């Protein structure tokens, strides 16, 4: 049969005659030198040949690692060489299986392994390292969150309340509570024991017990080293996921990233629940009423009824499932003494108020 050979050396097409000789495909150019030796040709074992569609009624034959291509008529080639070569389907299935295993392994690592390892890793991290991490973070946060410079007595009361609540905790760090200016209701436990409470939260708290409940919750975060856990998790899971998925916008990438977001939510939800339980213990240990936690979360959860509480959106972004937590806190509520005297509460309330 006839064919057209591209020998992989030049772009010149060589008309060839094609035959099968002893399990090998042999093609020789029609053109020959004066001694009758073909100017171009090829000699491939039939088993190594790959078929790909060329155009209507034609096939392109090639073999791995070879630049040469032989174009033949389908019908003539079938008559000469028999049925279709086995395709690469098995190899592709192997590839897909391998990649699926790799993907599942990565997913298990990201969504199960890292969250499970976060707590031990955080415990294993030296407090000195966490303290340095926290100090850097605090320095970076002074720009968005200006410290409150109101009643200095109020600042002392606030810090003392934090220290009091922490006496029965196992926190490896000294608890340092500060008030900061920010346009939303929230409190943050930084790595290393610093706790920031926003002026809006202090305004929204209707009793010292409510504020004490928030502080106890944040102290529990510090004690359990949740900031460090989140850091380890972000490093392990977030970075691996981002790195694997890449910057792309293609099929599947958005879906995988979305799933990563859900896993994030679940992780922080677990940490919040843990901090609630431990916070109630800390309040009880100081004999302070735990009704404040139930009241505060309850009001946060029903914020839509109260236009003044619209600013609580930030709280919900960082404290998922506030409604459920409010009812759990309500169930666990126990009476106790007020967290602060009226005088101390009044001066604390003015910690962010400009003097004079």
């Amino acid at each position, binding site marked *: 049969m006839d064919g057209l050979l591209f020998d992989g050396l030049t772009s010149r097409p060589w008309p060839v005659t094609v035959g099968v000789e002893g399990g090998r495909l042999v093609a020789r150019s029609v053109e020959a030198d004066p001694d009758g030796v073909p100017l171009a040709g090829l000699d491939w074992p039939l088993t190594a040949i790959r078929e790909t569609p060329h155009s209507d009624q034609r096939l392109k034959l090639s073999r791995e690692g070879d630049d040469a291509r032989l174009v033949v008529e389908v019908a003539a080639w079938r008559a000469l060489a028999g049925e279709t070569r086995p395709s690469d389907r098995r190899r592709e299935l192997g590839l897909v299986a391998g990649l699926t295993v790799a*993907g599942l392994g990565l997913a298990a690592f990201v969504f199960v392994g890292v969250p499970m390892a976060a707590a031990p890793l955080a415990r294993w991290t030296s407090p000195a390292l966490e303290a340095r991490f926290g100090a850097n973070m605090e320095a970076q946060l002074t720009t968005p969150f200006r410290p409150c410079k109101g009643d200095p007595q109020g600042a002392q009361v606030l810090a003392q309340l934090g220290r009091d609540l922490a006496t029965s905790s196992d926190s490896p760090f000294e608890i340092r509570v500060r008030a900061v200016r920010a346009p939303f209701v929230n409190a943050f436990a930084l790595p290393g024991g610093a706790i920031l409470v926003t002026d809006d939260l202090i305004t929204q708290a209707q009793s010292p017990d409510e504020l004490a409940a928030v502080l106890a919750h944040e102290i529990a975060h510090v004690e359990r080293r949740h900031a460090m856990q989140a850091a380890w998790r972000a490093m392990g899971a977030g970075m691996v996921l981002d790195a694997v998925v890449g910057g792309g916008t293609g099929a599947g990438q958005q879906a995988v990233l979305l799933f990563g977001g859900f896993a994030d939510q679940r992780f922080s939800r677990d940490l919040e629940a843990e901090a609630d339980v431990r916070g109630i213990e800390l309040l009880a240990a100081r004999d302070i009423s735990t009704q404040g936690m139930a009241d505060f979360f309850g009001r946060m959860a029903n914020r839509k009824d109260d236009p003044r509480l619209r600013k609580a959106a930030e709280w919900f972004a960082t404290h998922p499932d506030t409604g459920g937590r409010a009812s759990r806190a309500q169930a666990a509520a126990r009476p106790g003494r007020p967290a602060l005297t009226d005088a101390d509460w009044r001066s604390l309330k003015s910690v962010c108020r400009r003097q004079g």
Partner: protein
Amino acid sequence: MGEDGAPSPAQGETLTFGQTIDSKAFLGLSLKHGLLNIVTLTLYRFWAKTEVRRRIWSHISLNGEPFEYTGKGKELFLGFLFALVVLGVPYLAVILAVQFVNPLFSLLFIPLYIGLFVLIGAAIFMTYRYIASRTTWRGIRFQLKGSPAEYGWSYLGYGLLTSITLGWYAPAMTMNLAEKLWGNLSFGDQKLRWQRANEVGLYGPFAIAWIVGVVGYIAFIAALVPTAMANANNGAEPSVTMIGTIYAYALVFVLVVVLASAAYHAAVMREIARSLHLGEARFSLKVGAGELIVLTLTNMLIVIFTLGFLTPVVLARTARFLISRLTSTGEAQLAAALQAPQGPKTGEGLADAFDVSPF
């Protein structure tokens, strides 16, 4: 022509491009790739991209002989691992230094950021180089000479010039960069020549795009101010309506920009094709603004409404659009090219990270 219709080496040939791309045939492929991407945590994407290219290339022909894409998924995957190390390690080191050592280390982000521009440029060049080396016709590879670093620095320099001139350098930047990509391309050992045609005026359509873009942007911001003010007054929580409004305005802005810049982009395509020569052959890409608008908008809709799932369809449609408008006059010694050396072993890792790969 020889007796079999095959040209003998000394003869020149006129170039006739053809394509048999059926973009609907890419629907099944898209579905398969999307599902496999999810199952493999997107690791399949390198093989998916390779299969799409192989399909598209095989449906584009020159003088009856189809092109062939010889790249492999594994090569893209290895390139990705390489980029992970090159980009990830310095980035991670700086992040850790900022968090645990001293916040002043964040100053290092400035050179990293500048370096990023150079890397993006280099990534674009390396993508073209890889694709060229994996594209064959009549068994002969294409080859892109030149240096990724040089391209990367030019990318940064032209980018700075463009921002200093408030965008007015952009047409020159586009053509200068196009020269580095297309003017350094060879088919085997046959170099394509770049000779700036200057047949298509770029600054007229660019001025329209620029003015509409700037005015549109100001209008976009002005339209947002009342919404943002109203929101700031009643609390920090952005409502669904507000987010919806912002997206609606942004969509209108994008539409306006697409409409206003289509004439410019069409002119750039025509000018690039006009500036290319292979032997005595010249090229022409007859792209009009109207049809480019239709293509861009339909492609955008397909990508947005399928969350990227039908990206292969979009690529197929684009290739079909371009090749069906590509013609050539004059002759080139298409049968006389000698094989080019094998190209880079891995490809496009950086481009994958930055999402700048054209195909």
